């Protein structure tokens, strides 16, 4: 099993964010932000010491939800602060940005890290489109075209031009190119049937970044598998990633309380204005494409009201003592046969000391018992032309 660590780098020095959009930054305290970045970079780099295979970086905009509007900046710092951990960009919100810029910056991260990049191509969540003033109706067409263009920029042997619906470039020849060959492994979200199919079409690792229950996860995985088989190949566990908020402590009560309060803060404060923008986007546009939703619209409220014990049972979180978490991981693996787990180690305003302690317990008492599950997922990153 390949384990990645995700830490959204939230701004946690506010008690409420309000329900409107945008979320006012009038209460932003620069000195507190400096301290938070320092603590968060410490937690991210500590992941390597704890035996995480990868460190994740995510893009979100205009919200205390995460202070990582450009995840490539964090990734760039990590390339110099770590030596072995993979850099999991999960990742750029592709339809919002210049695809050539994404291709260039990802290639930089790949080279600067010595070929440790897993390249995430995300479509983002609806409020991001308001933040960057991009028509949400175009999210899928921009996504499809931009991914094609980025892959061309990475793999084309000679300079080329691109004449598309959303992007036009007459002369492209990026420096550097990625060091991994033919390009870094790709990670995509599989939160909807369309996303799952799209990920399979690109042979990407499909991340179910928020599991609701095993049935939901299996349904998305089966859509991926169906598409892969239609394209003539058989996906193994190394194509599936499951994301779960994680809290490990010496007692169940301590882990449960930390997870519970962190989750409440996440939903009540960090998600505040985002939900409103999201409602407006979904209501006013074809962002969802009218497709059947595997994740219910009120998922956040459902999850917020679900007791921690039930969330564990559903496979939504990992929580408890190291022994309990080992069993939860084994059970989840038995249910889903996935090869990657993305552990969200800081949930809401979970104390930073707790986060580090939780990671230490993962290192000493959890990973040794579960790393041998689906070992084929380890080693996807780092294949270079020389090999």
């Amino acid at each position, binding site marked *: 099993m390949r384990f990645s660590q995700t830490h959204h780098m939230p701004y946690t020095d506010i008690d409420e964010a309000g329900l409107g959009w945008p979320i006012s930054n009038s209460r932003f305290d620069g000195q507190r932000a400096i301290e938070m970045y320092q603590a968060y970079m410490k937690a991210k780099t500590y992941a390597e010491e704890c035996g995480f295979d990868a460190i994740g970086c995510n893009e979100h905009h205009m919200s205390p939800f995460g202070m990582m509007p450009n995840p490539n900046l964090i990734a760039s710092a990590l390339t110099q602060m770590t030596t072995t951990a993979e850099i999991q960009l999960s990742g750029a919100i592709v339809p919002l940005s210049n695809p050539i810029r994404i291709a260039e910056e990802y290639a930089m991260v790949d080279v600067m890290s010595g070929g440790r990049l897993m390249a995430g191509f995300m479509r983002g969540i609806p409020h991001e489109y308001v933040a960057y003033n991009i028509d949400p109706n175009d999210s899928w067409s921009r996504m499809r075209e931009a991914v094609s263009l980025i892959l061309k920029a990475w793999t084309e042997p000679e300079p080329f*031009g691109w*004449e598309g619906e959303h992007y036009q470039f*007459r002369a492209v020849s990026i420096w550097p190119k990625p060091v991994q060959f033919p390009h870094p492994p790709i990670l995509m979200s599989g939160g909807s049937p369309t996303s799952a199919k799209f990920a399979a079409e690109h042979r990407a690792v499909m991340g179910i970044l928020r599991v609701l229950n095993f049935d939901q996860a299996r349904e998305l995985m089966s859509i991926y598998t169906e598409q892969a088989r239609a394209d003539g190949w058989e996906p193994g566990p190394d194509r599936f990633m499951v994301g779960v908020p994680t809290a490990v402590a010496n007692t169940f009560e301590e882990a449960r309380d930390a997870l519970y309060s962190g989750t409440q803060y996440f939903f009540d404060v960090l998600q505040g204005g985002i939900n409103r923008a999201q409602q407006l986007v979904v209501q006013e546009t074809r962002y969802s494409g009218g497709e059947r939703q595997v994740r219910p619209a009120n998922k956040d409220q459902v999850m917020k009201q679900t007791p921690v014990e039930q969330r564990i049972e559903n496979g939504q979180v990992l929580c408890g003592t190291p022994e309990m978490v080992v069993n939860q991981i084994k059970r989840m693996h038995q249910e889903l046969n996935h090869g990657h787990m993305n552990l969200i180690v800081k949930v809401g305003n979970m104390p930073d000391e707790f986060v580090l302690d939780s990671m230490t317990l993962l290192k000493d008492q959890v990973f040794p018992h579960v790393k041998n599950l689906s070992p084929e997922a380890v080693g996807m990153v780092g294949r270079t032309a020389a090999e």
Partner: protein
Amino acid sequence: MSSDFKSLTWPLRSAEAPGRELSYFVGGRGPDVLYLHPASGFRVSDPLARLATKFRVWAPIVPGFDGTELQEEITTLRGVADLISEFMSAKISSGRCDVVGHSLGGWIGAWLAVLHPEQVDQLVLSAPAGFRAPDAAPLSFEPAVMLKQLYAHPEKRPIDEKPPEFITGNRDAIVHYDAGESRDVDLMSRVSEIECGTLIMHGTQDVRVPVDAVQMLRHEIPHSQLMYIYDAAHGLEIDQPERVGELIEDFLMRGEAFIVKATQTGDAAGAGA
């Protein structure tokens, strides 16, 4: 057929028997451009009609296509290129001009640029046939497969007004010129001799011209540009007529400088931007 184009014939100088002639269309006003049609024959596509608003377009019909007679002594597309060279010398005042070829026309255009470089100012190879690698899978000519491979947007395909005997004749002509495998080893070994500025266009979904074929051309032709047309298959003039028309026009008018984004001032240099 657009009323802008008129159909004429030109007597074949090389033909000894009386009455042998090369058919061609000509239309538009402006600098001369030679247009070489694909294996489906001549049709005034939207990009071609657009071209004719700024250029005088000469479009000879390759003997054997669109109901014309084969010239038995011309058995290769290299030979067709020589014939086109004669045509240019006879009909175009300076004897030289820009050349645009689509698919089979690109194949002929490449030969023309190799054999008669003094007659080709700039060259556009649109989904050029003839460059499939020896290990490429054989081309399918099964209609259902072809339809899928030719168009990313088959709904845009014009209803073919050509009589059935034209369509049959076009297929026979492909066989006559031994063009079915779309592989011309002699030409592939000589494309590096092409001296003129060359625009190569390829649809991102084109499987009839494999991507490694256009990559090879980009590598071998010294002054070439390769443009990918997103969401287009082999028939990129049909799939993405606006993008293709704009690119051709912009390249022909601005040459190498077409890589610089032009302002939308409506002046000649910025046309098509």
